[in-house]
């Protein structure tokens, strides 16, 4: 029997051979993995781009392995790149200010071929025509990303309880009215909650704040969290609005309200206040996603390919209505893309008021003293605990 012939000595020899073979095989595998970046793409993104509806056609047409990881806040994604993951990811999809103000200066992303990608902007909605500010570097020379999904994002009301007109007129003061304590929720979106609390406190979030403003912020954060009926995710907010547990909730807009609207609840509506403390007296805040190519030493050639792929009208429409949340896309400026949206879909993303809401919104920006304000808010939330 073969087994009986294995002596202790030749067992060791055979083991060594096997080990060598495995090691060799492993290395051969690694070499293949490097070569296979031609057929491999890794995307770090907000949810939607990681959905099968968006990725599967790309996978099958390119015979590529596409991995996408979705996260729900920008700083986490940026810090993943800062922590050395630039050699993993090929594309990063975050909100507008990060590419231009942080990622390009820190060399976390690299510029795109302007001649190849700028024409895409020309078929977008008018406000995104090239050169589009957030897709360019500070000098206005380099194209650093592509814009697709966007939307106003301030707060959401159940219009059966608070009319749209009242909400738009009263704006952030809804949270300053003591009678509203216990009637509202707060979406667990801590970076945006910092912006909104600044607005409730009556000053622009996107600047350095003086001591007086920080004190006002502290007081506002304590009061607003104390009065909240609940804090939770988008599904919980929509459910609580529909069930009547709450009448409105902080931080929200098309992005968060659209799933409920698409599900037959048009009374759930994102609101952009008519006026507020933001630059130019604007009342709300809007986000625009910019997708950029990561400064990966071995970036996949599929990265730019994917950026071009999502521009096609049918794919852009799929991105707008990918699983999770539903959002307007810049490509709706292209009639070929726009005609793919049904009336119900346009209702879900509040197309009727989109233009005026965007006009009333300041664009999302970086809060210079974000860390300090976030710590204050986290403490306020904790101190409201059990109250």
């Amino acid at each position, binding site marked *: 029997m073969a087994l009986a012939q294995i002596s202790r000595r030749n067992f060791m020899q055979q083991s060594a051979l096997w080990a060598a073979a495995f090691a060799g095989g492993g290395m051969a595998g690694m070499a293949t993995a490097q070569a296979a970046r031609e057929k491999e793409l890794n995307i770090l993104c907000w949810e939607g781009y990681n959905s099968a509806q968006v990725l599967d056609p790309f996978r099958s047409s390119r015979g590529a392995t596409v991995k996408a990881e979705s996260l729900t806040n920008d700083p986490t994604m940026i810090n993943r790149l800062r922590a050395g993951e630039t050699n993993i990811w090929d594309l990063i999809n975050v909100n507008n200010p990060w590419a231009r103000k942080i990622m390009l200066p820190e060399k976390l992303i690299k510029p795109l071929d302007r001649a190849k990608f700028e024409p895409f902007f020309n078929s977008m909605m008018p406000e995104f025509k090239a050169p589009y500010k957030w897709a360019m570097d500070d000098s206005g020379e380099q194209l650093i990303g592509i814009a697709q999904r966007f939307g106003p994002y301030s707060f959401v009301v159940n219009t059966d309880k608070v009319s749209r007109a009242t909400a738009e007129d009263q704006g952030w003061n809804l949270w300053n009215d003591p009678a509203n304590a216990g009637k509202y929720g707060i979406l*667990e979106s801590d970076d945006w909650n910092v912006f909104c609390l600044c607005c409730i406190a009556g000053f622009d979030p996107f600047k350095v704040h003086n001591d007086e403003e920080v004190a006002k912020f502290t007081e506002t954060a304590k009061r607003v969290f104390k009065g909240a009926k609940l804090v939770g995710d988008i599904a919980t907010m929509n459910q*609580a609005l529909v069930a009547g547990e709450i009448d409105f909730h902080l931080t929200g807009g098309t992005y968060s309200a659209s799933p409920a609207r698409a599900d037959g609840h048009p009374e759930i509506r994102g609101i952009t206040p008519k006026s507020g403390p933001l630059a130019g007296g604007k009342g709300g805040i809007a986000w625009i996603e910019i997708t950029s190519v990561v400064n990966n030493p071995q970036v996949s050639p599929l990265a730019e390919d994917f950026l071009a792929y999502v521009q096609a009208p049918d794919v852009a429409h799929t991105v707008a209505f990918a699983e999770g949340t539903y959002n307007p896309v810049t490509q709706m400026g292209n009639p070929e893309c726009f005609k793919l949206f049904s009336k119900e879909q346009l209702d879900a993303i509040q197309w009727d008021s989109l233009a005026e809401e965007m006009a009333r919104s300041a664009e999302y920006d970086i809060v210079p003293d974000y860390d300090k304000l*976030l710590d204050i808010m986290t403490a306020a939330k*904790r*101190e409201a*605990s059990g109250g």
Partner: protein
Amino acid sequence: MSPGFRNALPVMLFLLAGFAAPLIAVTWFSFMPPRTFAFTGTPTLENYETIFQSTSYISFLWSLALAALTVVLLALIAYPVAYGLVRVFGKWSMLATLLFTIPLFVSENIRLYGWVLFLIKNGVMLGTLKTYFGIQAESILFTLPAIVLGMVYVYLPFMLFPMTLGISMVPQDTRDAATDLGASRWQVFREVELPLSLPGIMIGCLLTFVLAVGAIAEAKVLGGQQIIPITHDIEIAFTYSQNWPLGAALSVLLMLVVGALVVLVLRRFDLDVLLGRR
């Protein structure tokens, strides 16, 4: 090198790499400067200072209090059920065990969202009461009782099964002997069954406490974050705050507090003695 040591070496290395290394990494990270992402910074106590100067104690107290309350409630609820499974239900106890086990196959979050649908205003419970019986009641969702309900529900099997084992370890002969010697049913329970099933009860309590101190989903989903347990503070530090060293320091403190409590309990109740090995 003794053969015993040599044979144990692979397992020891595995434990070192898989169990000790992450704990050491977290501990080391807790001494790194705030809001940094590398292991190479100059060690500092700043994160611990921040925690002791902050209101983090509120979260610690909530976590410990909720876990303690869960353990007490579960001990009271699970003991009769465990007793029934071992002594009363007979052939039905298999079915009952199965019913208690099946929910474990469903993700905790999904089960908790199920409770949300059940408890929410106009939901399964309140909606039914309103529609069919005309009873208007306030929902307990997003309140402390809802969190406790969720924790008791989620951790029930972890208390129940060690207890069942503990009770089943009490020999029938011992109970019979006690009865023959004239003990009343209460005396048999009080003086024979309860002490002899104590190992199961203790293991159940410890297991449930340690798991419940780490609970986060109940307070988030059923409690609407009305209470922020320490685990949630840790999560915020690692995500929105992007302050990994602070999160690591909070984790180390939690491990120390829970570790100290477990050691205290184990010193009071030596499991080996309880299990009759010594």
